[in-house]
Structures are given as structure tokens and as C-alpha cells.
């Protein structure tokens, strides 16, 4: 049963075997797997419950409905915008459906350097998750005009790229994925694992913010939560008694919840090691209209500049990006007439972003008003790598036929033609605050590892310092993943769920 807390003010008590907090790529999988195996599950989600019928493809409605802070969250210094989900289904409701498994060299790094054990079992989880999400490679007819042009441009330059795998069934290629799929085609958690958890008897509460976990006695955990009205104001209380708690609220909210609970910090690493996969965008202006916001937005990607076999800690990938008016305008420089001068070319605009596999790290902790204080600073090496990424985006856009490329430096933005070259980018570089950076993949703030002195959770996601409390979201990545994280997050959550089931007789007591 799915209950919308916004319509149910009052005081509630629940008792269950497992309480799952968060319903995105991690929480939905854990809840469904445990409920399907017969465990009594309560799932709490801070965001609202909305179905494809609610998704009207309009930015002013969908950004507040689906995103934390209507998509306007940033790091403390404002340098990196952070887009992450706040709704039943989490970020899988608004993501662009790339499906990558964790690269083998990254898993090897996690095993060798972070002593994560038994990652071989992750292969079974990858297969289960990919089956459940309908993952398949995009067929050529589904590649939209912008992606085709960028593929051609990359091939002209001799850069390696691939048409990606996605989780879509019966896609009508509208292109509005980032505003929620109105057709139910994107196989987000909202239309896959959440209904499965529901059918298996999980009791799902939307609009219910977990405030703290009380873990005073082994085998008895209490989650104290607040029911929220449609404007996010408290209008009720919830307490859930459970033997096991699984935190899946994402790499921003999970460490904050543990901090509020006084848990998970025996290593001093809770909330640290934040990686963001920061991206920098260049916008190409093409001669003819592309209407690149229609059609599957990301079907091709360029992996020429990441060689994880050689160096598992750095590199960048290039991915197409197109946006609707508001999202596009927010990436353009200036305001008023200057900004309009760029935006009036919207049908001819097509973007390419460089996503950094970052070594840089930051932290998440509670700030004033209990809101997150997110700190992040690029290393000089990563600034250089992002600068190289920006140069590559510009070169690929030119090779794809763009007549001009906009580089949105806050001060004196660049509009570059092929004859200009990219020397100016090298000279200016990429620095926080000088050019917009965006993240959709915060991760690693409760990292997994075999050593309780350097990591927050063990190899299966259980807190080193508190038995029966697990983390199953992007927080647990020991390092930056270096690839879109949806499938890896879901697979690690599946693996954690299987582990909980194996240990159930021990954990229930």
C-alpha cells in the first residue's frame, strides 16, 4: 500500500521487520527484494508520490515536483549545482536512463585498495537488476539528430564512442525524460521495483522524512520521522519499530540522517569523501534547427578520454545534453538581452558535457536550520582535467557541424568559431565560480570498505559500528564510479538485500 503523508496528518506507529529509508535506485530495490522474500517492510520516502499521469512535461511543474529544492541546490560556495531527486522513485524518475555497470577496473580498485570483499557476487545482482529494468542497447533509429551529429563528429576526430544501453520499454522518443516519463516507458523505480514492493506487501509512506534512527538495543531499532504536507511543512509524526534499518536516502541525506542519529562515525569518515562527477557544458549553435530537446536526449557517449585500465582514478567522458527552455537558459551566460541573444537560438542549440571522474572530494554535514552544508573543492589536477574536457567538448561540437560554440564563463563568456581554436579555454581554465559546474551524481559519503578505521560501512553495506543498520545507495561507493551510477547503485542494493536475507535469523534477534 502506498500512503501519501500529505493527505494524512496525525500520529502514526508502524512495526515491521525492516524499515527502508529512501525509494530511489537503492531503496526501491531493497524494499522489493526483502518484501518479495517474505519480510515485513515499511518504506519511508521524503518526497511525494506521483505517477506518470502527473507528469505534464512542463518545467515549472516538474522541477518542484521531482527535484530537491526545485533543482536549485548547490554546494556551499554556489560553485556546483546539484540536481537530485525528491519523490517516490528518487533520481531514477528524472534521469536520462543511461545504464552502465561499474567498470571492472573500478571494482578491482575497490577490492584491492578498499578491501571490499566478494564483489564477484555483484555480477548476479547486475543481471537481476538489468532484467528487472528492461535494459537494452538503443537501436540506431532511436538516436536523435543531435546525438547522430555528435557521433559523426567524434568519428571524424577519431574519438571512441558507443551507443549506450538504456532502461526503456515502448519509448515514444518524446525526449522529456528529465521531467519524468509521462508514458511510463522509462523503467524507473517508480514503475518497476516500487510496484513490485507494493504487490509484495511493503507499506510505503510518501511525504515522510526520517529524522533520526534510535539504536539503543540490539535487534530493536526505531526510526523517528515527520509527515509533511504538500508544502513540505510538518503536519504529523511517524515512528517505525524494526529489527533492521536500511538507509537509502542518497549521498547527501544519508550521512545527515546518520549524523542526526549519532551513528556511523567511528572512522570519522561519515559525510566525507564526497565525489560529485562534476560536469561542464559547451553549447553548439548549428546552422539548421535540431530541436535537440525532442528525441532520446542521451543515446551516444564518448569514452576516448577515460582509460580506467591504465588509470582508474581520473579521466572524463563526454555526453550529449539538451534542455527545455528553463534548463537551457540556466546554463547560458548573463541575463536580460545578453542571455536572450543566446536563448533565441534554442532550436539550433545542442550541448555536450564533460563529466569528470573526480579525485577531488568534499563533505556533507548538517548546517544551520538542519540543512545540508555541502563542501567541495576541485584539486588542481581535476581542474586541469575538466579544462581538457571542456576543450574536447568544443572540438567535438565543431566537428559535428556547430558553427559557433558558447562557453559560459561568468565573466566575458566565449563564443568560439573553429578558426578560434581552444587556446583561450586553456588560458582561462576551469575554476569554481568562473564557469557553471553541475552534478547529478553525488556519491561516496558513507564509503564501503573492509577496514572500519577508514570506511563507514562494511563490504555488504552494514555500519561498521552498529549491527543491523545498513546503507544501500550511492553513499557506499568507495571512490568515484567514473560512469553513470544507476545500475551500480541498484545492483549493490540488490546484493545488500540478498545479504540481509542470508543473515536474517541473526539480524532479527
Amino acid at each position, binding site marked *: 500500500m502506498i500512503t501519501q503523508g500529505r493527505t494524512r496528518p496525525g500520529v502514526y506507529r508502524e512495526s515491521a521487520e525492516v524499515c527502508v529509508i529512501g525509494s530511489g535506485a537503492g531503496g526501491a530495490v531493497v524494499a522489493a527484494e526483502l518484501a518479495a522474500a517474505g519480510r515485513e517492510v515499511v518504506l519511508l520516502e521524503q518526497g511525494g508520490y506521483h505517477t506518470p499521469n502527473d507528469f505534464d512535461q512542463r518545467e*515549472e*511543474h516538474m522541477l518542484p515536483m521531482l527535484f530537491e529544492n526545485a533543482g536549485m541546490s548547490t554546494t556551499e560556495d554556489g560553485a556546483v549545482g546539484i540536481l537530485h531527486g525528491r519523490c517516490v522513485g528518487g533520481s531514477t524518475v528524472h534521469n536520462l536512463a543511461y545504464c552502465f555497470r561499474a567498470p571492472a577496473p573500478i571494482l578491482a580498485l575497490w577490492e584491492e585498495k578498499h578491501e571490499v570483499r566478494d564483489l564477484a557476487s555483484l555480477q548476479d545482482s547486475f543481471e537481476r537488476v538489468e532484467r528487472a529494468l528492461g535494459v537494452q542497447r538503443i537501436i540506431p533509429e532511436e538516436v536523435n539528430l543531435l546525438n547522430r551529429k555528435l557521433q559523426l563528429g567524434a568519428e571524424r576526430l577519431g574519438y571512441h564512442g558507443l551507443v549506450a544501453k538504456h532502461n526503456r520499454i515502448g519509448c515514444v522518443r518524446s525526449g522529456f525524460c528529465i521531467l519524468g516519463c509521462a508514458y511510463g516507458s522509462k523503467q524507473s523505480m517508480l514503475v518497476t521495483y516500487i510496484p513490485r514492493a507494493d504487490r509484495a506487501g511493503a507499506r510505503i509512506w510518501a511525504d515522510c522524512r526520517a529524522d533520526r534512527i534510535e539504536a539503543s538495543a540490539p535487534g530493536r531499532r526505531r526510526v523517528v520521522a515527520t509527515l509533511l504536507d504538500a508544502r*513540505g511543512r510538518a503536519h504529523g509524526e511517524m515512528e517505525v519499530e524494526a529489527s533492521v534499518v536500511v538507509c537509502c536516502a542518497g549521498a547527501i541525506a544519508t550521512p545527515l540522517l546518520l549524523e542526526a542519529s549519532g551513528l556511523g562515525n567511528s572512522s570519522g569518515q561519515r559525510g566525507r569523501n564526497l565525489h560529485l562527477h562534476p560536469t561542464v557544458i559547451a553549447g553548439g549553435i548549428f546552422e539548421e534547427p535540431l530541436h535537440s530537446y525532442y528525441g532520446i536526449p542521451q543515446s551516444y557517449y564518448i569514452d576516448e578520454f577515460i582509460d580506467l585500465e591504465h588509470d582508474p582514478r581520473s579521466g572524463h567522458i563526454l555526453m550529449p545534453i539538451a534542455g527545455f*527552455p528553463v534548463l537551457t537558459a540556466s546554463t547560458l551566460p548573463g541575463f536580460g538581452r545578453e542571455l536572450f541573444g543566446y536563448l*533565441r537560438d534554442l532550436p539550433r542549440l545542442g550541448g555536450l558535457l564533460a563529466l569528470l571522474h573526480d579525485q577531488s572530494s568534499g563533505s556533507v554535514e548538517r548546517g544551520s536550520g538542519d540543512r545540508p552544508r555541502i563542501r567541495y573543492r576541485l584539486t588542481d589536477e581535476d581542474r586541469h582535467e575538466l579544462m581538457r574536457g571542456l576543450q574536447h567538448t568544443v572540438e567535438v561540437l565543431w566537428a559535428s557541424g556547430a558553427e559557433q560554440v558558447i562557453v559560459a564563463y561568468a565573466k566575458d563568456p566565449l563564443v568560439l568559431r573553429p578558426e578560434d581554436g581552444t587556446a583561450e579555454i586553456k588560458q582561462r581554465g576551469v575554476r569554481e565560480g568562473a564557469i557553471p559546474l553541475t552534478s547529478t551524481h553525488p556519491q561516496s559519503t558513507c564509503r564501503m570498505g573492509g577496514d572500519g578505521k577508514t570506511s563507514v560501512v562494511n563490504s555488504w553495506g552494514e555500519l561498521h559500528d552498529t549491527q543491523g543498520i545498513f546503507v544501500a545507495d550511492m553513499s557506499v561507493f568507495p571512490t568515484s564510479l567514473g560512469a553513470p551510477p544507476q545500475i551500480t547503485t541498484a545492483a549493490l542494493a540488490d546484493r545488500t538485500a540478498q545479504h540481509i536475507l542470508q543473515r536474517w535469523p541473526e539480524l532479527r534477534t
Partner: protein
Amino acid sequence: MKRRTFLGLGTLGPAMWVLAQLPARAAWLGGTGSTALDATVPGEPCVLDDDDADLLMAIVERMVDTGEAGAPPPREIGTLAAIEGALAPLGEALLQELRLALRLVEYWPVFLEWRFGRFRSLSPEAQARSLEGWRTSRIETRRRVFYALRNLALLGYWSQDETWPLIGYGGPWIRRPT
């Protein structure tokens, strides 16, 4: 007073404290005491009072000024309702910061640019110059305020059907009552 939160306004320290004490509508600084808001759609959430909303819309007008004769004025379409829809779920603490940010923009010309008038009493050109000062300020917090307000303005204006002909956008594939 230590605040580094949504907009990081605390870094402005004493200036913010002084400005925060000022009423949003001060007749001695050229305020008319009247508002002309007709953009709020009945039934939509109202999260700003009339004067804060009027001030916000004055900023929006500069932020989305296209210079095009046929551009729909922000106050005549659903701009404010769209912005309030985005603000509604943010919580009172964030809204309080927004109100402080609005006052900072309103009174900055008086106290820190030594102009004879608040933001709303300036000419459009002077308003644009004042906002440019926020955008290019060496103070990180001022830049953050600028971009927060810019994001709201862009969301409110360019999400409206009436603006899409200006930028050749065909709109959603599905049409449902809004």
C-alpha cells in the same frame, strides 16, 4: 550572526543585518505603497506578500528583458505563479532567506552604490547595471544571490507558453490542463 545557508547571506554580516531591519516598503525611499500584481492565479500558493512579490517581479523584469517589442511582460503572464509554485515546497527558512535577498537587492543601490533610490525606483538601465554589479561582484555571496534570483526568474518566465514563440520552442508533446 552566523549564517551560511541557502544563499550564504551570513557572509555579508553587518550590511545584511542592517538591511534586514528595513521594511520592504519604505515610502521615504521612494516607495509608492501600492502594488499592481495581477499575475497570481487564484488557487495557486501565495508564499510572498504583495510587496515582496512586486519587488521580485521588478527583478524578474530585468532578468528576462529580451528587448523584443512583442515579448510578453512578465507580470501579464503566469510568471509569478510559476515562481511561487517552485518556492512553496522549500520551507519557511529558505523563504526567509529569499526575503532577505530581495531586500538586499532593493536597498543596495541606496547604501552601497550611493544612488538616490531603491532598486524599484531606478530606471531600467540603472536596474540592469545594479544587477550586473551583483553578477560580477567579488563577494561570493552577492553572486550567489544573483544566480538564485536569476534561476527563479528564468523558471517563472521561460516556462510560460506565451514566451515560447520568441525562442522557437514547440512545447510539450502532451497537452494537459495546467
